[in-house]
C-alpha cells in the first residue's frame, strides 16, 4: 500500500508535469542504467540465496542454511554500498538533492524508502543467522517457518525494485 501510493504519486507528478520539465534519459536524470541493472541482478541473486536458505533448512542442514543467509546478507550490503557510494554520493556532490526538482524528490523518496526496507531485511537476516538461530535446536520447524516469513519479506523488497528500476531509470 505504501509503495502503491508512492507509485501513484510518481505517475500523477509525471503526467501532470509541464512538457519538457521532466528529465528523460540518463543525461538529464543522471541515473546510470548499468548500475541500476547491476543492482537488479544483485537483488535477484539475493532472492535465490534466501529461498535456498529455506530449502536447506527443510533438508535439515543448518550449516548450509547459515551459508545461504550469509550470502543474502552480503548481497544486500553490496546493494546498499552501490546505492550510496555510486548513486547517492555523486548526486549530493553535484548538489542534486530532493529539493532540486520534483523528479529528484520522488526519486530519493522511492529509492530511500526501498533502501530502508533493505536495511530492515539486513537486521532480520543477521538476527536469524546469529542469536536467532538458537531456535533451530529447540524448535526446528518453527525456525524454518520464520526463515520462510523472512524470505517472503525479502522477495517483496525484490519485487518492488522490479517496478522501481524501469520506472525511474528507463521510462
Amino acid at each position, binding site marked *: 500500500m505504501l509503495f*502503491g501510493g508512492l*507509485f*501513484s504519486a510518481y*505517475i*500523477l507528478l509525471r*503526467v*501532470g508535469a509541464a512538457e519538457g520539465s521532466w528529465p528523460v534519459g540518463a543525461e538529464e536524470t543522471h541515473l546510470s*542504467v548499468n548500475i541500476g*541493472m547491476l543492482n*537488479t*541482478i544483485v537483488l*535477484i*541473486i539475493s*532472492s*535465490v540465496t*534466501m*529461498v*535456498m536458505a529455506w*530449502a536447506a533448512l*527443510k*533438508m535439515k542442514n543448518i550449516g548450509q542454511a547459515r551459508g545461504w543467509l550469509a550470502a543474502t546478507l552480503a548481497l544486500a550490503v553490496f546493494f546498499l554500498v552501490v546505492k550510496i557510494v555510486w548513486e547517492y554520493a555523486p548526486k549530493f556532490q553535484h548538489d542534486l538533492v530532493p529539493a532540486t526538482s520534483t523528479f529528484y524528490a520522488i526519486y530519493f523518496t522511492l529509492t530511500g524508502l526501498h533502501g530502508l526496507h533493505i536495511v530492515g531485511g539486513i537486521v532480520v537476516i543477521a538476527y536469524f543467522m546469529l542469536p536467532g538461530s538458537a531456535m533451530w535446536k529447540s524448535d526446528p520447524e518453527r525456525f524454518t517457518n520464520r526463515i*520462510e516469513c523472512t*524470505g*517472503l519479506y525479502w*522477495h517483496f523488497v*525484490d*519485487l518492488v525494485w*522490479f*517496478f522501481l*528500476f*524501469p*520506472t525511474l531509470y*528507463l*521510462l
Partner: protein
Amino acid sequence: MASDAHDLKKHVRIYWMVFGALAVLTVVTVSAASLQVSVGVAVFIAMAIAVTKGSLVASFFMHLMFDKNRGIGALLLLCLIFFVFLMAIPSLVTFEAINTVNVP
C-alpha cells in the same frame, strides 16, 4: 522423507531456472527501453515485463504456485487489476479541468 528430499531437489532446480529467466527478463527490459516507440507503448512493455518478473518471484520463490489455497492467488490477481487501473487513471483525467481557476 526420501520423497521430501527429492521434491526439494526438484524445487532447487526450479529456483535456479527462475533465476535464469529473471536475469534474461532484466536484460530484455533494458534492451526494450532503446526501442523507438510511443510513451504509452514503452510504459506497457516495461510494466508487462515487471509484472512477469514479479509473478515468477511470487509463484516460485514465495511458493504461491504450490499453495493449496487458490483464493490467495485470485485475491492477488484482483489487486493487480485494481493497481493497473489506478496507474491508468491519470491518463484518463483531463488536467485542463483540474487547473481551471474561476476568476471573478
